[in-house]
C-alpha cells in the first residue's frame, strides 16, 4: 500500500487547530421538519481559506446544511456562526433571464463602479466577451461560470457550492474544476462544496466530509498537492464509497431463475 495513505483514519479525527478562528462554526446543530430529523448534533468548523467537500447520498442532509450556512433557512436558538459575507452557486445557475449577464453579476451590488466590478469578475471567468448577452443564450457551462462570477464579485469569506457541476458534461466539468481552483487560489474564500461525486471531492478539496443520516460519518484530510493525487484517488474512492454505500451495488443482484424450455 502507498505510504502516503497512512493518514487515512477512521471517523472522528481530532478537530483542526488553526491560528485564525474558523469562518464557520457549528456546535450541536440540529435540524428537523416535524418528527423528521434531518441533521442531528452536527459539529463543523471550516477554517479561513479551507476547501471542504461535503459528500453524501440524496437525503443525507447535505442540502439542508448548505441552506442553513447560506442563510436561506433560519436557525433560531442554535449555535451557528457563519460570516455575513457569503455567496452561493447552485446546481442550476439561477441567473435572472431578464437581466443581461453583467447585470446578473452586479445583482444587489451598491456603488458607482458596479459595471466595472462585474466586468472584471466576468473577465476572470473567461466571459469578458459576453457581458451584454442574455442568460438564456448561454450554454450550461457558461451560465455556471456567470454564477461563479456573481458569487466571487462579492469577495465572500465563505463560498457555498451546491453540486455546481452536476448538470455539466464531463469535459466541461473538468474545465470547471480547474477554474474553481484558480479562483479559489486567487481569492482564498473558505469553500464548502456539496457534491455526490467522490472523484470531484478528491480532486478539489483539502478535506472531505461524508454526511450520512444527518451526521458526519467520516472525514478525510488530504495533504497531497492537487496535481499529484492520481495514486490516491482509487483507494480513497473505494474507502469513501464504502462509507457512503455500505454494500457494493452488485450484492443486491439476485439472478432470476432461467426458464427451462421443454
Amino acid at each position: 500500500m502507498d505510504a502516503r495513505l497512512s493518514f487515512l483514519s477512521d471517523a472522528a479525527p481530532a478537530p483542526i487547530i488553526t491560528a485564525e478562528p474558523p469562518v464557520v462554526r457549528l456546535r450541536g446543530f440540529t435540524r428537523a421538519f416535524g418528527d423528521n430529523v434531518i441533521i442531528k448534533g452536527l459539529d463543523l468548523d471550516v477554517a479561513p481559506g479551507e476547501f471542504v467537500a461535503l459528500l453524501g447520498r440524496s437525503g443525507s442532509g447535505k442540502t439542508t446544511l448548505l441552506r442553513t450556512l447560506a442563510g436561506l433557512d433560519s436557525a433560531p436558538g442554535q449555535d451557528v456562526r457563519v460570516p455575513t459575507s457569503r455567496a452561493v452557486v447552485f446546481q442550476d445557475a439561477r441567473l435572472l433571464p431578464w437581466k443581461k449577464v453583467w447585470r446578473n453579476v452586479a445583482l444587489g451590488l451598491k456603488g458607482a463602479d458596479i459595471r466595472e466590478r462585474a466586468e472584471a469578475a466576468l473577465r476572470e471567468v473567461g466571459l469578458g466577451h459576453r457581458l451584454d448577452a442574455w442568460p438564456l443564450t448561454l450554454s450550461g457551462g457558461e451560465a455556471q461560470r456567470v454564477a461563479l462570477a456573481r458569487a466571487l464579485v462579492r469577495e465572500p469569506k465563505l463560498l457555498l457550492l451546491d453540486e455546481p457541476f452536476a448538470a455539466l458534461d464531463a469535459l466541461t466539468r473538468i474545465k470547471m474544476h480547474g477554474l474553481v481552483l484558480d479562483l479559489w487560489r486567487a481569492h482564498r474564500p473558505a469553500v464548502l462544496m456539496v457534491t455526490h461525486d467522490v472523484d470531484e471531492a478528491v480532486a478539489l478539496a483539502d478535506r472531505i466530509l461524508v454526511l450520512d443520516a444527518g451526521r458526519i460519518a467520516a472525514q478525510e484530510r488530504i495533504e497531497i498537492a492537487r496535481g499529484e493525487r492520481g495514486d490516491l484517488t482509487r483507494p480513497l474512492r473505494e474507502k469513501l464509497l464504502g462509507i457512503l454505500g455500505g454494500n457494493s451495488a452488485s450484492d443486491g443482484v439476485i439472478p432470476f431463475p432461467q426458464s427451462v424450455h421443454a
Partner: protein
Amino acid sequence: MASPTQIASRISASRWFSPLLFLGLWELGSRTGLIPERTLAAPSAVATTLFGMVVSGELPVNLAVSFGRAALGLVIGVTVGIVLALIAGLSQRGEAAVDPIMQIKRTIPTLALTPLFIVWFGIGETPKVALIAFASMFPVYLNLYSGIRGVDLRLLEGARSFGLSQAELIWHVILPGSLPSLLVGLRYSLSISILVLVVAEQINASAGLGYLINNARDFLRTDIIVVCLMVYAVLGLGADWLVRLIERRALVWRPSLVEQ
C-alpha cells in the same frame, strides 16, 4: 414559361384568393340586384362611403371619440387591475382581502351590469367608460396575480442568497418575472375593451362609432354600418399590434425573440 393552368392553380392556392373571390361575388350580387342595397351595400359603395366619410371628417371625429372612450376605460381598468393584483399577489393578507371579491366579480358578465350602470351613471360618457374599465380590469388582474404567484422560487431564493431586501426582490425578480403574464392579460383586456365599447356605445350616444351605426340603422344605410364594422376590426388589429410591440420590447430576453 408558366402555362395558364399553372398560373390559375397558383392564384387559387394564394391566401388572398378566397377573400377576393368573396368580395367579387358580393359585388356581382349587388350589381345584378341579387343582394338588395337595404340588405347589404356593395363593396364599391362601401369604399365610396368610407372615402367620403374620411374626407368630410365624419369618420375621424367619431373614431377619435370612440378611441378616447376605449383608451380611458382601458387605462382605468388596467391600472386598477394591476394595483389589485399587486396587493393580492405580494401579500397573504392582500390575497385574502382582494381575491374572493375578484372571483365573485368574475362570475358576473360585465355587460349584464349595463342597466345598473345606466341607473347609477346616467346615459352620458361615464357608464360607457365605467363598463370598459370594469371589464378590462379582470384579465389583467387574473394574469398578473397568477404570474406573481408563479415566479420561479429558485430564482427568488438565488437572489435572496445575495442579500437582496424584500423591495429589491420585488423589483428585480418578482415584477420582471410576472411581466409575460401581465402582457397576456393586457392583450385580453384590449380585445375585451373593444368588445365592450361596441355594446356600451349603443347607450344613447351622440358621437362615436356606435352613434354612427345607430344613425345608419335608422336610415337603412348599410354602407355606413359596414364601414363602422371595418373600423372596429381595424381597432382590434391595432390593439393586437400594440401589445406585440410592447412584448417585443419588454420580453427581448426570451430566446424565441432573441433569435430574431
